[in-house]
């Protein structure tokens, strides 16, 4: 039972349904059609997410990331990626904290492995409509709208500005 649990936590499956994915040179953009949220995955997070097939092991991912960043990569980096991907609802199953990720802080990881590791640290960030349009008279995010032209983002989704 505990072996199964460990295996499940080691190799989660990436969620693929209800997502729109766009690949950019240095990052991966993901739009969650169910939650209407946009995420940006840096190369490390994208690499981990793309390998989340339920079969690849953490060890294999560590090797892959090491090859990619040309530096020694801690396995906690993989846990950290799982943790962030899970919180962004990009892994199958409920969002949760991955036990491995909480054992070590981002700062500690950087300190331990130096600058090379910093490059490899996974980042999953939310993309939000910039708030620099306060001076504008267009409608901000979440304001009601009937036409995209009314929104600062030029996007009116289901009666609300994106």
């Amino acid at each position, binding site marked *: 039972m505990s072996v199964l649990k460990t295996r499940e936590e080691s190799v989660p499956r990436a969620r693929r349904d209800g997502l729109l994915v766009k690949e950019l040179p240095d990052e991966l*953009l993901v739009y969650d059609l169910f939650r209407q949220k946009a995420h940006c995955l840096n190369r490390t997070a994208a690499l981990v997410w793309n390998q989340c097939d339920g079969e690849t092991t953490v060890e294999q991912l560590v090797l892959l990331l090491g090859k990619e960043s040309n530096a020694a990569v801690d396995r906690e980096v993989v846990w950290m990626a799982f943790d962030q991907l899970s919180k962004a609802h990009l892994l199958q199953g409920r969002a949760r904290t991955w036990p491995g990720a909480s054992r070590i802080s981002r700062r500690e990881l950087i300190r331990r492995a130096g600058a090379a590791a910093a490059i490899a640290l996974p980042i999953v960030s939310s993309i939000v409509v910039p708030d*620099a*349009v*306060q001076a504008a008279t*267009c409608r901000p995010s979440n304001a009601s709208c009937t036409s995209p032209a009314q*929104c600062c983002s030029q996007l009116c989704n289901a009666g609300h500005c994106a």
Partner: protein
Amino acid sequence: MEGPHRTFTTPHRATQKHGELVARMLFGAWRLNPPELETCEEEIEAVTPQLLGSGAGALGWRRITSSQFRTSPAAFKLQQAYRLQTLYAGLHEVEIEQVIKTLAAEEIEPLLIKGRVAAALYPELGLRPYGDIDICFDSGHYKIAASILNAQGDKGSGVDMHDGFEAVYGLSFDEVFERATTIKVGKVMVRVPCFEDHLRILCIHFLKHGGWRPLSLCDIAAALEAQEDIDWDRCLGGDKRIINWVSCTIGLAHELLGARVSNIPVLTGAKKLPRWLAAAVLRQWASPYPLANETPEFFKLNLREPAQLKSEIQKRWPNPIKATMYFVGSFNELPRLPFQLGNFISLGLRALGRFPRHW
């Protein structure tokens, strides 16, 4: 660039300077390799709201992506806009596909114009945001299509329907349809006007809305550099006024955004832009937000507060470009005041339900 004629709203140098900053940021931004940006971080910070608010955030990001400013806080906001627009471009592909399929099921084939068609002129679709799906029908299909799309509820709400091209663009729908070409949107082929017809549509659309949106002029600049052998006879037609409108818009794209126009014969007119025109556009660009460019309702004009009357009139005072287009006028050195005054009065009378609408 100051015009020789005083308009009601005296040109404000500071306002125009903001517009010039917008123009500088968007100079060549549609190109695969945009020119090097000569600016400072403070200027980027100052112009960011205008770029974001007018939908030109992604193009702004493109201008600074290879500069030293790419890590500044303003750059981050522009990058976020680029990322979002890239994702939304993907979403819109699906929406357009659905609309076209729905209409095709009823044997209606419209022409897709503006937003998505213009976006194809840029190196990436995400650089040019579009909210509405602009589609044009011949009069016979317009009402049927409207009822079909209305029945779709939310799915049809993002469609901006146009009844032919004649009234606004001086083009016959049948002729445009006959000359039309196709582009692939998602998995479907969609009919779009030929390059020359669409360029005319983009130019007139820019002027019709008073030139307030810098992105619309970027569309024209991108189009001018996208195709070398433009059939100008087809684009301009024989109407002197249309020739005046299109050549002036091309002249603006050249003067304000640096569009390359060396091989364009119609530019004899475009090079002689009326002196007030570029300044009028730059004043609009200082505040390029959709709501800022909507004229407040005339019936809400409070005549009982004389102290506020001047500012209330100023808010409703038409910009010289819009006023010229309202009266189907030509862009030349003649004063714009008669157009503006006439436009103001007719809008006021229209509010009272006494005057027919031109557009």
